[in-house]
């Protein structure tokens, strides 16, 4: 085998310019794909991190039917005390769960005493919320960032309302809300911070303490709209989701209908569609890479066979078996693939390191100066390397087979 590699390598060196051009094309393709995967992967994981760690959590549990009318923020579809206890019991038995946060979601009237507008509110237990969505406090663009997020009687207001109604940190505002029975109640809050808005559901909600919400809505006992769950490792999400979905499906009401519904962040955030488009584009780029490698290697190998017909006749006459002739040409294609891939991978890894060192920034929606930190996993690199080398070998098969099947007398007559 070493001798076949030696002869194949020398034949590549013999047509050096063509070898360099073809392997450069492969290199270019590999660099494009690896950089695209690393940059979009970084963008994707950053955005997923933003969405899950500052707003949604990894998955959420609601009472069945809540999601269908989530735009209305219905208060009559909250989980009751017994149901909340059941959810707590289930979650406490799942090792992969890092934390969870109980929330009441509601709509209210927001007044600064001179103007009134409507506001969506996320009411939380700060200690739970900060564990479940740890980046929430990073979204506080005005006001002091506190470990406890906010205290009773305080409100974090969305940036749009703060600007639109000229409300500043330290101002007093009034929230007026209807409870599920239709009674109206109001309560004064102190603005403790302004929250940066982000894309997706809940991205422009204000935040108050759960106890304040209970007071505002005159709730006795326990009522919870949603339970956001954070996992220790987001990679466990499919497994945990599947397990929780099955477990919660077993809880039914007297009519036999399920009581709970479980959703991952993918069901809750429109960004998932963008993430899917990124994956689709990655696939498309990979297909283009395959096409580049296939066409360039096949072209080179067809030329190599055509130019060496007489040589093929000679080695065939000498007694070289068809399998070895085929191996000689397949090895040439393999080496071209390896050369292009190795150089491409090295250039890609260096480029990724340079991009990280330079610290490129970009804007996404209302978020600006997000630092691009491309990374690429060994799995992705290995996959691309194997695809390229595999395609290089596959592209060499037809010309190599043609060489191996060549009639020696015809080949020897070829000028």
């Amino acid at each position, binding site marked *: 085998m070493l*001798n076949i590699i030696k002869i194949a390598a*020398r034949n590549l060196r*013999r047509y050096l310019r063509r070898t360099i051009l073809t392997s450069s094309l492969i290199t270019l393709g590999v660099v494009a794909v690896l950089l695209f995967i690393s940059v979009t992967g970084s963008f994707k994981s950053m955005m997923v991190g933003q969405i899950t760690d500052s707003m949604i959590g990894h998955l959420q549990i609601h009472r069945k039917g809540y999601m269908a009318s989530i735009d209305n923020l219905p208060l009559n579809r909250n989980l009751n005390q017994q149901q909340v206890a059941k959810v707590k019991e289930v979650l406490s038995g799942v090792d992969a769960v890092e934390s969870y946060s109980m929330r009441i979601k509601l709509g209210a009237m927001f007044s600064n005493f001179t103007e009134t507008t409507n506001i969506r509110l996320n009411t939380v237990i700060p200690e739970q919320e900060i564990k479940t969505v740890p980046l929430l406090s990073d979204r506080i663009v005005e006001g002091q960032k506190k470990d406890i997020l906010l205290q009773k009687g305080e409100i974090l207001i969305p940036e749009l309302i703060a600007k639109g109604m000229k409300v500043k940190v330290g101002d007093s505002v009034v929230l007026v809300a209807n409870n599920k029975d239709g009674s109206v109640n109001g309560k004064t809050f102190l603005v403790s911070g302004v929250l940066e808005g982000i894309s997706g559901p809940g991205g422009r909600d204000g935040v108050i303490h759960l106890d304040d919400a209970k007071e505002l809505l005159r709730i006795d006992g326990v009522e919870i709209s949603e339970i956001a769950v954070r996992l220790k490792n987001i990679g466990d999400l499919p497994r945990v989701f599947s397990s929780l979905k099955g477990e919660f499906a077993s809880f039914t009401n007297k009519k036999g209908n399920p009581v709970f519904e479980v959703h991952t962040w993918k069901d809750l955030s429109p960004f998932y569609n963008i993430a899917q488009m990124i994956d689709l584009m990655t696939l498309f780029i990979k297909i283009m890479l395959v096409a580049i490698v296939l066409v360039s290697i096949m072209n080179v190998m067809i030329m190599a066979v055509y130019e060496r017909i*007489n040589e093929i006749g000679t*080695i065939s006459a*000498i*007694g070289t*078996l*068809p399998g070895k002739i085929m191996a000689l040409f397949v090895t040439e294609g393999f080496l071209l693939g390896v050369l292009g891939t190795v150089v491409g991978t090295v250039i890609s890894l260096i480029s990724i390191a340079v991009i990280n060192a330079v610290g490129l920034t970009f804007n996404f929606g209302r978020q600006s100066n997000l630092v691009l930190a491309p990374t690429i996993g060994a799995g992705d690199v290995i996959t691309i390397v194997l695809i390229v080398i595999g395609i290089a070998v596959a592209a060499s098969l037809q010309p190599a087979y043609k060489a191996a099947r060549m009639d020696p007398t015809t080949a020897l007559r070829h000028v």
Partner: protein
Amino acid sequence: MSLVTADNLEKTYRIGDISVKAIRGVNFTIEPASFVSFVGPSGSGKSTLLNMIGCLDPPTSGSLQVAGQDIAGMDRKQAAHFRGKHIGFVFQDFNLIPVLTVFENVEYPLLMVQNWPSKERKKRVNNLLDAVGMGDQGDKYPSQISGGQKQRVAVARALVTNAKMVLADEPTANLDGETANRIINLMKKMRDEFDTTFIFSTHDPKVMQSAEIMFTLEDGKLLQRQNDNGGINA
């Protein structure tokens, strides 16, 4: 026992709808360690006959025994194996592999066809290169040596596997007269040294004279067999 026995050998090529009879009912025998030439004008069937003896082209009909084996029924792989074991080739255009050095060209059949161990392989290649007078040129590439030297290397490559016979199709056609003589003399010397049968085709009268047995072909038929002692079988 004869090395080559042809009995009513025929070869017909089909070119489209036309059949061309290249060899028409030829009978001959060739003994081991002989120095044989096939002569005749272009298109007489010399190369076709050599290709059949060399297992490169199967006969259309008749029998052809080479080294005790009927080669008519061999498939591509068996034929390649047989050639690698029993037959060496010398070509008009030398046909050395350009990416291999002189040493590696001679080594090629031992390495890629017969899988000889490294030590014996190197010894054998050096012996052959010395025998053809190319012992000091082993590191050169074919592009760095002359036509005569290339053909010497080709002779060494043909002999390196201890082949029973070497087939040479117009081995001197691309060489000047003096170099052609040297190559023929070298082949004779190799025959004497290794007892290898040399069968070559030529239409060069000077080269014809050096053959011990000369078969004359015309229009695919064997016209006569002439020995170097002047004996003629028509």
